[in-house]
């Protein structure tokens, strides 16, 4: 059974004009959100998108937009108090970036 999160909230979009149909988004997506049809990437399962941003990072023509980040409530609460970007887990003392 495929677990899905809230309906119709994921921020992912593909600019079909820019898309060259290389298929890297399909290859990196861990939730099978894309399908390549007629040399264009199509979003076939938007609710499965967890906004990890792998597709956007790897799209060579910048055709994908998504507000990527960690879908983690502790991180969202943390960002509320520190007024910084959502990040989860304890901070590593050797590095001010945080990790989960």
């Amino acid at each position: 059974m495929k677990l899905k999160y809230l309906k119709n909230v994921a921020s992912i979009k593909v600019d079909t004009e820019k898309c060259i149909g290389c298929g890297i988004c399909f290859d990196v997506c861990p939730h099978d959100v894309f399908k390549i049809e007629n040399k264009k990437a199509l979003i076939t399962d938007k609710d499965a998108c967890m906004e990890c941003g792998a597709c956007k990072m790897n799209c060579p023509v910048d055709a994908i937009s998504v507000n990527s980040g960690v879908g983690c409530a502790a991180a969202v609460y943390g960002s509320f108090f520190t007024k910084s970007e959502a990040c989860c887990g304890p901070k590593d003392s050797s590095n001010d970036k945080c990790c989960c």
Partner: protein
Amino acid sequence: MHKINNNKPHWIIGFKDTDSKKIPVVSTKLSTKDILSGWIVRWRFYRMNYKIKEGLYCIGEADNNSPVFVTANYKLTFDRLRKELHGINAWILVLDTKGVNVWCAAGKGTFGTIELTKRIRETNLEKIVKHKNIIVPQLGATGVSAHIVKKLTGFKVTYGPVEAKDIKVFLKNNFVKTDEMRIINFKLKDRLAVTPTEIVMLIPATIIILAVSVILNFIKYRIFGPALFTDFIPFIGALFIGSVIVPALLPILPFRSFALKGAAIGLIWAVLISLIDFNYIKLIFNIMLLTPLISFIALNYTGNSTFTSLTGVKIEVKIATPIFILSILLGSILKILNSFNII
């Protein structure tokens, strides 16, 4: 092979000479020590500092034709990879991810384009292998831009399977993934993987709850009697349900929202636990305290899940938080008044 020196990790079984330097050869068998310390790490408060040195490692009799696998310097991650490479000749390029696993580090960018490029250059990878291919775990794609790595280093990134256990089939398949290798699972064992750490992190909360229960109970009954358990058990039970039962039952709990999943099972717990020595006041404050508590723990589990989006979590947090605060505030007032025998 060179003589073993004393301050090297036990899993390095020798060194391979290349033109530029000696590269550590790594065992593909996990020792009892590896397995035991892996377990201890899972039970520790923070799973920090379980890391190995970044750089290039050799598996088997790797040569300039052997594949290159990129991974993180979290030792549990590295152990899983080297175990799966048993019987294969390969190179492992370990990135410095500050001891964090591939996916989490990729989300932060520490497993990323810049670090990967830097390691390729620092290890002189182009002198070690004559091909121009590196295999990066698919979940690393969140931090790596394959086309930029290619532009900067000449190396072509192939995204390997999500899980290391599929690597052998992936290699046999000529570096092509099946659909199953691309998709992340969230099976029972995955859902409970972080439970030990979560339980350890609940210990302080448990002590506080125990202390508060003892005090309130003493105020109400003037003795430290068995009635204590009717105060203490609902809360300890709620912590357990939130951190163990919710993850275990995640797919069958109703609703897509994690806060609602938690609230649903929280409501059931609050009603069930109120049936012991039932009265309406108790039912109401149990519902007002236990439901948001379990709901909150469930909402925080989004951070461990593999399918929740930031946009969705922000929506949940925004809606649920004021309800949590209000409910717990009113519930606490009721409970305290009840302890003083005012209502």
